[in-house]
């Protein structure tokens, strides 16, 4: 008892211990394991535990993963491109909503709006993805609707089985992740700053550009990261939306682990993906650090 009775710091440490130990065992340790195994190789059904960089050499030498060829991109750049596009669109679509809830909606109705926005997010992801397939499919809701209305004669093919459908689905899935951080940043803005700006001769629009937008950058950065990072790891949407044709990084990893049974290569691919995500995220933070200084 002794030290816990007298030292609140010791009590705090004792409380941090269980979650920390849990995370060390089930997160830190596995992350180390994934690094280790990525330097081994698969030989038949067994693992060859001699240290080698063969997996990494395989990833970097062939055209499939990184470099691509004249006809198609490498899987990694394509994945990053798709995630970046999804992120851009998701955040751009989300900003006005966050702005709307923060600045237009009456204070007592804000939590209702937030609640309305969060509900779809908590409903089965798999089923939502699947429904987009139904909506965008050849005989889907959009096509049949448009034909009924006489706008088109033949169902459109462009809707499903291409990147557009992936982007639409992911933009839908991660909408809440984008809205909330921006909303929080906007809520923090002292409203008198806006009045001060208008008092100094700016109109609504220039006030938005010169005051609101810069002050909401931390929220935008948060939104970008929190959308970008998980979308790279999502393989359900590409799998269902691209059919068997298109493969993104996460599909490749999934295949290595669950179908081809080449875990070391899968581990190396996971690490490359994590590194790529980390580097892109850091670059993004660095590019915006002027706006993040002293806030965060």
């Amino acid at each position, binding site marked *: 008892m002794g030290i816990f009775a007298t030292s*609140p*710091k010791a009590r*705090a*440490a004792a*409380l*941090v211990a*269980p*979650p*920390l130990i849990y*995370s060390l065992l*089930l*997160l830190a340790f*596995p992350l180390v*394991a*994934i690094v280790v*195994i990525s330097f081994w190789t698969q030989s038949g059904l067994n*693992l060859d535990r001699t240290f080698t960089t063969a997996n990494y050499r395989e990833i970097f030498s062939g055209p499939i993963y990184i470099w691509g060829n004249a006809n198609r991109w490498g899987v990694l750049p394509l994945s990053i491109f798709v995630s970046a596009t999804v992120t851009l669109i998701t955040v751009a679509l989300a900003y*006005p*909503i966050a*702005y*709307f*809830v923060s600045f*237009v909606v*009456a204070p007592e109705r*804000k*939590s209702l709006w937030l*609640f309305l926005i969060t*509900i*779809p997010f*908590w*409903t*089965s*992801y*798999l*089923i939502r993805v*699947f*429904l*987009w397939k*139904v*909506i965008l499919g050849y*005989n889907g*809701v959009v096509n*049949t609707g448009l034909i009924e209305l006489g706008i088109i004669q033949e169902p459109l093919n462009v809707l499903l089985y291409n990147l557009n459908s992936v982007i639409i689905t992911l933009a*839908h899935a991660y909408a809440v992740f984008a809205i909330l951080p921006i909303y929080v940043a906007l809520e923090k803005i002292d409203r008198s700053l806006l009045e001060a700006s208008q008092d100094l001769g700016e109109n609504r629009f220039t006030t938005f550009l010169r005051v609101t937008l810069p002050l909401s950058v931390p929220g935008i950065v948060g939104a970008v990261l*929190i959308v970008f*990072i998980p979308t790279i*790891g*999502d*393989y*359900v949407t590409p799998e269902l939306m691209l059919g068997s044709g298109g493969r993104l990084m*996460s599909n490749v*990893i*999934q295949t290595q*682990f*669950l179908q081809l049974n080449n875990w070391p290569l899968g581990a190396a691919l*996971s690490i490359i*993906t*994590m590194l790529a*995500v980390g580097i892109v*995220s850091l670059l993004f933070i660095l590019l915006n650090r002027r706006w993040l200084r002293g806030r965060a």
Partner: protein
Amino acid sequence: MRRAWGLRTYAIIYLVFLYAPILLLPLFAFNDAAIIAFPLTGFSTRWFEQLWTTQALHQALRNSLFIASITAILATLLGTCAARAGTMPSFPGKRGALGFVMLPLVLPEIVIAVALLIVVRQVLDLNLSNWTVIAAHTVICIPFSIAILNGAFQNLDPSFEEAAMDLGETRWGAFRLVTLPLVLPGIISSLLICFIISLDDFVIAQFLTGSNPTMPVYIYGLTRFVDALPLIMALGTILVTISITLLIIAEYFRRRGVARAGFKDTGGFL
């Protein structure tokens, strides 16, 4: 209040976009046709009846409920520890420790799944089971639990517990009589949210599930059969109804917590 019609219209359209899939769900679930397309052919509950008689589905559901319940309890317990420590005096490394626990929030889910799969199969040489899924789900749920409970704990005046102890309560008594009732709504929200996350997760479950699949894994398996589509719609309808009910309960408790403690409502989870 400003008018801002442009933004208002945009917000409505956005909500339609957000809700479109969910609203279509019951349409097809109660549609008589085996093909998911317009026009609708007629009202029928036969897909639900078929669900009722599918044994494999019931097994998957039981698995998922078991996993989600244990995960919710574990993650909330650990999240409560962390959130409470967050409001206590700092010691060297506290920020780092709490930051590390939040890490799954910014790790691609597939990486967590893969890493755990390696540890379970290669390092520990255990068989995959519901418990491996629970272990992994707890890892990804802890950050959400902490985020929800942080709000609850940070709203508390640190003097509350001291006042209780000053009036003769032990440290545990002070926690039980003062802190716990005040954060209870947060704990209930956390339990419900973790339950939903676990129930809904597919990626981790697919990697770590044992011989008995969880619900999302089972659904994913169904998607390969065209004639199972209406079944998925029916199942989805049920799941969405459950999720929304739980969410409304969670939100109710969260608001009651806010009101009970007399704080200003700042809105929303996370």
